[in-house]
């Protein structure tokens, strides 16, 4: 018992100051295998990118700015437990998930951050899966009964994750969803004695030092949203202070802690995959159940301090409330949602594809492939596939030949599906330049997306904008498929901040030194597609007009959580 206590006492300082020794894994060379797509020519030529690790304490303050060059800063203080294992896998989602089983939360956060920074986990779905798993771990290891502290902890992790890779907006989305879960659990348990505005004011504030170091991207694009009517910003400093003291009172409640630790295993061993998980394993409820229904009440902002007291009361007055378990259940439902969103989107395919259509799509998106496959069971149509050179062309050709992506998949065994061509759908691969030429024959454009923004616009693989625009010029409907998890409460005020630039070497190989020296080669990875070019969104909740998306955003994110 004392060991656990000391652990939980160490807890707070550990993640604020970060002096905890990290097992630097410099010996394993593959950590340094920087498959970093954003390396510019300049940076690529500098020989030893990863050999001088920044001191770990700077991790918290690392602020990737919007400029594409800073992204290439690589921190190698990753804790790659995987490398100690026998299997030498390239670091990625699967290795992360594996290591997550055996690694405590904090090193896992570091690990994930390093993977994000090196783009070893990229794209929305792997990021979402990894973030959810990590959140489960973080919540599972959280020792304490204080909801405010739990939220602060989640928030803290979320801030660091989004700072590590601001353009993977999905990471922030998942963190916000988890925060929403905590609030939901609290709301349910507080029950009838709360008015509608209970949860809205309980905004665990950001820590003072963080306002200084918050990354520019996050600050400028997410500080405003029509969904939060001045809910967050007016939080005054006094409130911060009071709350800080509140959350600093951890030692005052040893009784609760000890009673709680009876749940926990006797060491820092994983909680998630231990026996504990057996009891909290959720029945496979459809993910719709996990989406909260209509928490938008912006009224009742006055009761901040009152609510904070209530929150503290809650932890004391309801000792049998297992906050952590409930939140973990919620996160598992979120995981189910992630898993099922493709199937749910695909299930409406027949409503959108009629016979003999010619459908244009691009990139190797599993969502789109499953959608089309589901339609192919009943209908005959033709697919025109733009190959998205140079980023995604290999994956595109691969998915058309074999029916699955080569990388980025967790469940490689179960997730196998047939290529479209094997179910009798003719697929025509065209280079990207042919989009306009072929558009006059196309009935429908189906786009995959990277992120959907609250204004109905989307960030998708480069080339999406010209495809959508060409479709608009030909009055061809554009359908965007996206799981709700990609839907972000972020408003795109500066679009360029959302656009990631990739490895210029895939445009012009580095062997061509003369060319590379003299010409600026640019390789944007994403396009922003404005909402007016999109006709329909299909999410796992159904089809929506782009103008309606703000409503779904409001359903899924609490307005207080929009700023992490």
């Amino acid at each position, binding site marked *: 018992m004392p060991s656990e206590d000391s652990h939980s006492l160490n807890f707070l300082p550990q993640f604020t100051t970060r002096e905890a020794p990290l097992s630097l894994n410099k010996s394993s060379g593959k950590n340094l295998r920087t498959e970093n797509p954003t390396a510019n020519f300049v940076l690529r030529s500098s020989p030893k990118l990863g050999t001088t690790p920044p001191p770990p304490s700077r991790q918290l303050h690392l602020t990737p700015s919007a400029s594409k060059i800073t992204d290439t800063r690589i921190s190698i203080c990753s804790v790659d437990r995987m490398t100690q294992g026998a299997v030498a896998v390239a670091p990625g989602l699967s290795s992360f998930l594996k290591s997550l089983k055996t690694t405590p939360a904090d090193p896992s956060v570091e690990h994930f951050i390093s993977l994000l920074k090196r783009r070893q986990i990229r794209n929305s779905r792997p990021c979402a899966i990894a973030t959810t798993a990590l959140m489960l771990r973080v919540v599972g290891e959280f020792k304490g009964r204080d909801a405010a502290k739990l939220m602060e902890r989640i928030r803290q992790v979320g801030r660091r994750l989004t700072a590590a890779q601001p353009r993977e907006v999905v990471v922030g989305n998942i963190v916000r969803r988890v925060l929403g879960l905590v609030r939901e659990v609290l709301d349910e348990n507080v029950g009838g004695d709360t008015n509608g505005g209970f949860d809205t004011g309980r905004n665990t504030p950001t820590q003072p030092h963080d306002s200084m170091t918050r990354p520019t991207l996050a600050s400028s694009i997410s500080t405003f949203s029509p969904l939060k009517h001045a809910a967050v910003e007016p939080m005054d400093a006094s409130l911060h202070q009071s709350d800080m003291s509140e959350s600093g009172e951890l030692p005052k409640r040893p009784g609760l802690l000890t009673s709680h630790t009876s749940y926990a295993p006797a060491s820092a061993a994983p909680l998630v995959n231990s026996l504990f998980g057996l009891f909290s394993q959720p029945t496979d409820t459809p993910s719709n159940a996990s989406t909260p229904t209509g928490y938008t009440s912006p009224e009742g902002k006055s009761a901040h301090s009152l609510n904070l007291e209530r929150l503290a009361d809650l932890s004391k007055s309801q000792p049998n409330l297992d906050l952590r378990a409930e939140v973990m259940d919620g996160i598992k439902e979120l995981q189910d949602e992630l898993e099922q969103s493709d199937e749910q989107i695909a299930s409406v395919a027949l409503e959108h594809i009629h016979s003999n259509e*010619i459908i244009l799509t691009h990139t190797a998106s599993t969502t789109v492939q499953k959608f089309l496959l589901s339609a192919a069971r009943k209908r005959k149509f*033709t697919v*025109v596939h733009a*190959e*998205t*050179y*140079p*980023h995604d*062309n*290999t994956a595109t*050709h*691969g998915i*058309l*030949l*074999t*029916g699955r992506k*080569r990388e980025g998949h967790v469940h490689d065994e179960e997730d196998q599906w*047939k*290529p*479209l*061509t*094997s179910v*009798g*759908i*003719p*697929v*025509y*691969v*065209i*280079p*990207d*330049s*042919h*989009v*306009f*030429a*072929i558009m*006059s*024959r196309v009935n429908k454009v189906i786009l995959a997306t990277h992120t959907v923004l609250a204004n109905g616009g989307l960030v998708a*693989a*480069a*080339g999406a*904008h*010209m495809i959508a*625009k*060409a479709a608009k*010029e030909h009055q061809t409907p554009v359908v965007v498929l996206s799981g709700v998890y990609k839907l972000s409460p972020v408003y795109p005020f500066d679009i360029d901040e959302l*656009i990631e630039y990739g490895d210029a070497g895939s*445009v*012009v190989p580095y062997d061509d030194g*003369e*060319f590379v020296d*003299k*010409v*600026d*080669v*640019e*390789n*944007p990875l994403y*396009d922003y597609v404005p909402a007016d070019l999109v006709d329909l969104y299909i999410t796992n909740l159904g089809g929506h007009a782009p103008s309606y998306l703000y409503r779904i955003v409001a359903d899924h994110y609490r307005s207080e959580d929009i700023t992490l």
Partner: protein
Amino acid sequence: MSEPVVDEAAQAPPAPTEAANKPPAQAKSDATNPKPAEAGAPKKLSPAELKKQKQAEKQARRAQQKAGGEPPTQQKGPPQKDGQKQQKDSKQAPKDDKSRPLPVRRRPSQSSVPAPKDLKKEAKKDWKQVGLFFGHLYSQPRQHSMVGASKDVHPAVLSLGLQYSSYTVCGSTARMVAMLLAFKAVIESYQTPVGTSLARHLTSHHLSPQIDYLRSCRPLSISMGNAIRWLKDIIIKIDPSTPEAEAKRELLEEIDMFIRERVTAADKLIRDLAATKIEPGDVILTYASSSIVEQTILQAHKAGVPFSVIIVDSKPLFEGKQLARKLANRGINVRYYFITGVSHAVKDATKVFLGAHAMMSNGRLYSRVGTALVSMLANSHSLPVIVLCESVKFTEKVALDSIVGNEVAPAEELLSESERAALIPLKSQLPQTSSKADDKTNPEETKTGTSDVLKWIEGSDNLHHLQVLYDVTPAQYINMVITEYGSLPPSSVPVVHRLSTNT
């Protein structure tokens, strides 16, 4: 670049290498006198034999459709060694198969050419693709070798044809000029046969095989068509009484003049005018590579105007890379994008300069595929889109979309070697049911090469690679067309076309 071509050209004169496979007598009759043989063959057939021939053809076709396997010649070849007509018949079968989607449009001089085996395979592959989009455009496979070229084809034309098919000579104007220069060589070495006059004989009997050969290497460009029309016109107008030497000299001079007037001088006028449109601080966006755009940019740079250039490029030729290199070597600030990044590129640009393959009479621009995308996005950003085009590239043709008329490129070109190599690791994941082509290759070869990737694609029944070379840009995206006659709106193209052809 042209060395390999020259090498091959050196082997050219003994063109009918194919003939070596045939019994000597037939080979001789075939090779020395192709047209009469062709014309005479049907006459020699008795009705019964004709019927037989047709049946054989039909069977061949059926067999090909069913099996999708070997070309019919292989089954039919051996037993029919006797008799000229049967030899003919075996040769005609594959040809018919190839050109079936279109009315046969091979000229007699060409139809005596048996297609080599790899060509037949290619034809089959294209045949698979005939269908949805450009089915009407698949005619005959592009010729990549001199094998089977008619012996009438001049060596200069032979080498030029290979340069066309390998994209060594590429671009509407360059192809036209190269063709005219080759024709000069053809005319120089031309001897009017006794009994005919140069005006009557040259065009129909000597020039047209050359043109046909060039067409078989790559479809003629609009400008080439215009130039050929003009050349035929000139030849017809030659007074039959003119001595041959003089007539030839006149012709050569006319061709030189044409190149000088319609290309060299026109280019100078256009670039002088267009260079004035580049102002200090401009960011000029251009797509792929056009010689006239390059000249314009260099001229403006020489004049000391400070500006930068954005080059948008695309697969598979990456012509923009050459342009970028040239401009950068001259000290111009160049940025380079692929077409997928074009929506980012147009944000920073202030003007768009485009080259043309042709300007159509409805004001639309027929140019390298992707041009329409660039001009669409530029137009939506309110950037001026300026097309630089010599009037020799104007045509009276009209088109509304890019599908009715286009040039289909071989589908294999879609995947470069490195891309194919990148796909090799997928081998283990290939669906086992895919095709017989797969089954054939898998057990035999343990090591997979890049060519296997193509086989996978060829082998899978529903996967097609599609590539065309041009697209049509709507007139409303184009703000100005600069020609040697001055700058005009796209709607004035037909007027200028009339002016330039009726002088």
